[in-house]
C-alpha cells in the first residue's frame, strides 16, 4: 500500500496551505512486524519479573538490616546471630538448610532481575536509535533516571559485598575470623566504607523509584493511591538506606569497635 492521499496520517507531508500548495510524499509504510508470541517476550511480563524479584530482594534487605543492627549489641550477639542463621530448623533439618534456601532464592531473584533489566535496556536503545539534539526533562525524577546505571553499580556492590563479608576473599582480615571482626575490619577502611555509603545511597534512590514502579507494574496504582504509594516508597527506601548506613558509620566514628 502506498499513501498518496492528503488525509492519511503519517504519510501526508504538507508544506503549508498558504499557497494552496501541498507537497505530498509517497512512502511505503513499514511492513507489519510480526510480534513475538512467547510469554517472556512481553515487556510487561519482563517488568513483572523485575517487580517480583525486586520485592523479594526488598523483603530480604529488611530482614538483613535488622540483623546488622545486632552489631550494636556487641561482638557476641552479632556472631551468635550469624551462627543462628546457619542452624535454623536444626535438628529437624540439616545445618544451613534455611541459609541455602535463602541464598538460592536470592540468587534467582538477582539473576532474573538483572536479565529483565538488561533486556528492557536493550529494547529501549533500539527504540531511540537517533538521539535528540535538544531534549529537556519535563517531570522525571533523579531516582527514575538513575535506575539503570545505579542498578549496575549495585550489581558490582553485591559481588564485592559477598567477596568481602561472606567469603572474606577481599576482606582485610580474611576468612579466618569471626563475622564481627570482618565487619570492623572493612569499615575501619575508609575507601571500602565510602563505597558502601555510595552504594547504599544508590540503593535508596533505586528503591524510591523501584517501589513506585513495582506497584505500577503490578497494576496496583491509581490516582487515588498515588500519594500513598509514593509515601511508602520514600519511607521504605529511607528506612533501608539509613538502617544499612548506621553500622558502617558507627564503626567509622568509633561508636562500635
Amino acid at each position, binding site marked *: 500500500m502506498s499513501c498518496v492521499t*492528503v488525509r492519511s*496520517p*503519517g*504519510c*501526508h*507531508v*504538507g*508544506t*503549508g496551505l*498558504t499557497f494552496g500548495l501541498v*507537497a505530498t*510524499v509517497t*512512502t511505503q*509504510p*513499514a511492513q*507489519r*512486524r510480526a*510480534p*513475538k*508470541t*512467547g*510469554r517472556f*517476550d*512481553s*515487556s*510487561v*511480563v*519482563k*517488568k*513483572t519479573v523485575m517487580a517480583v524479584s525486586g520485592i523479594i530482594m526488598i523483603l530480604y534487605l529488611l530482614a538483613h538490616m535488622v540483623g546488622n543492627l545486632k552489631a550494636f549489641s556487641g561482638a557476641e550477639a552479632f556472631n551468635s546471630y550469624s551462627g543462628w542463621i546457619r542452624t535454623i530448623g536444626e535438628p529437624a533439618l540439616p545445618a544451613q538448610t534455611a541459609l541455602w534456601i535463602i541464598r538460592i532464592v536470592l540468587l534467582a531473584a538477582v539473576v532474573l532481575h538483572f536479565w529483565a533489566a538488561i533486556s*528492557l535496556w536493550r*529494547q*529501549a536503545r*533500539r*527504540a*531511540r536509535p*537517533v538521539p*535528540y*539534539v*535538544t*531534549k*529537556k*526533562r*519535563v*517531570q*522525571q525524577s533523579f531516582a*527514575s*533516571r538513575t*535506575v539503570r546505571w545505579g542498578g549496575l553499580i549495585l550489581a558490582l556492590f553485591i559481588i564485592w559485598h559477598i567477596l568481602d563479608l561472606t567469603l572474606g576473599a577481599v576482606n582485610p582480615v580474611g576468612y579466618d575470623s569471626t563475622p564481627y571482626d570482618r565487619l570492623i575490619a572493612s569499615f575501619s577502611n575508609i575507601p571500602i566504607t565510602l563505597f558502601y555509603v555510595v552504594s547504599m545511597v544508590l540503593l535508596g534512590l533505586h528503591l524510591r*523509584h523501584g517501589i*513506585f514502579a513495582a506497584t*505500577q*507494574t*503490578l*497494576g*496496583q*496504582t*491509581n*490516582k487515588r493511591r*498515588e500519594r500513598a504509594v509514593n509515601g511508602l516508597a520514600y519511607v521504605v527506601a529511607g528506612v533501608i538506606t539509613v538502617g544499612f548506613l548506621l553500622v558502617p558509620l558507627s564503626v567509622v566514628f568509633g561508636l562500635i569497635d
Partner: protein
Amino acid sequence: MMSLTLRIWRQRDRTKKGKMVTYHVTDVSPDMSFLEMLDVLNEKLILDGDDPVAFDHDCREGICGSCGLMINGIAHGPEQATVCQLHMRSFSDGDVLDIEPWRAGGFPVVKDLAVDRSAFDRIISAGGFISAPTGTAPEAHSTPVPKKNSDAAFDAATCIGCGACVAACPNGSAMLFTAAKVSHLGLMPQGQPERDARVLKMVAQQDAEDFGGCSNIGECSAVCPKGISMETISRLNHDLLGALRAGAVPMS
C-alpha cells in the same frame, strides 16, 4: 512582530543522514500558531527556490494528532497542547528554537520533521476494536455502564494518537498510547469479549514495532496534550497480568 532563529532538522528521506539547519524568520505575529509560523518560513524558502520544510499537519484544531514536533526539547513545545494549538505568544522576540521530528525506532523519519506513525495503526489493528453487530444502533440504555467506568473510558478515549508520549519517553515507549487504547475499550461492557486477547496482542505489537518498555518515568503523561494519566498504564499492566492468569495465550 517577532523575529526568530530556527534550527530545524533537515533529512531528505529515511535512508539519508539528517542535520540541523539554521533559518531566520521575521514578521512573526504573536497570534500566529506555530504551524503558521512554519508556513511563513516555507513561503520564504519556496520564493528563494529552496526546498520547503516538510512537517505533518491536518486538522489544525487539535484533534487529528498529526502535527507532532519536538520544540526546544519538549514534545509539542512549552504548552501541554498540540503544535497547531501552540501560539507564538508563548515565545519571545529573538528566541532560538530547535525543531526536531519525533525520534523513535517505531517512527522512522519520512522527510525532515515528518515521521511515519503507521506503527500506531498496526498496534490498533492488532486489537483495538470490538466485535459488534452493525445495522441499527441499539437503544443507548440497554447496556448500563457504571459512571466511574464510563468517565475513565471517555478520558482514555480522548487520546488522539499524536505520539508525543513516545517522543518524550526516554525509553521511546508507546505504552501510554497503547494503554489508552486498551483501557477505553476494556472498561466498557462492549469491550469485554476481546479484553484478554486485546491487551496481549496490542502490547506484543507495541514491543514488535521497536518501541521501548515502560519504566514508569512519567514524561509521557506530562506532555500528553490530552492529559492521559499514568494510571492508564497501571490498568494495562493489571489487565495483561489478569489475561495471563486467565490462561489467555499471546498469539498474533
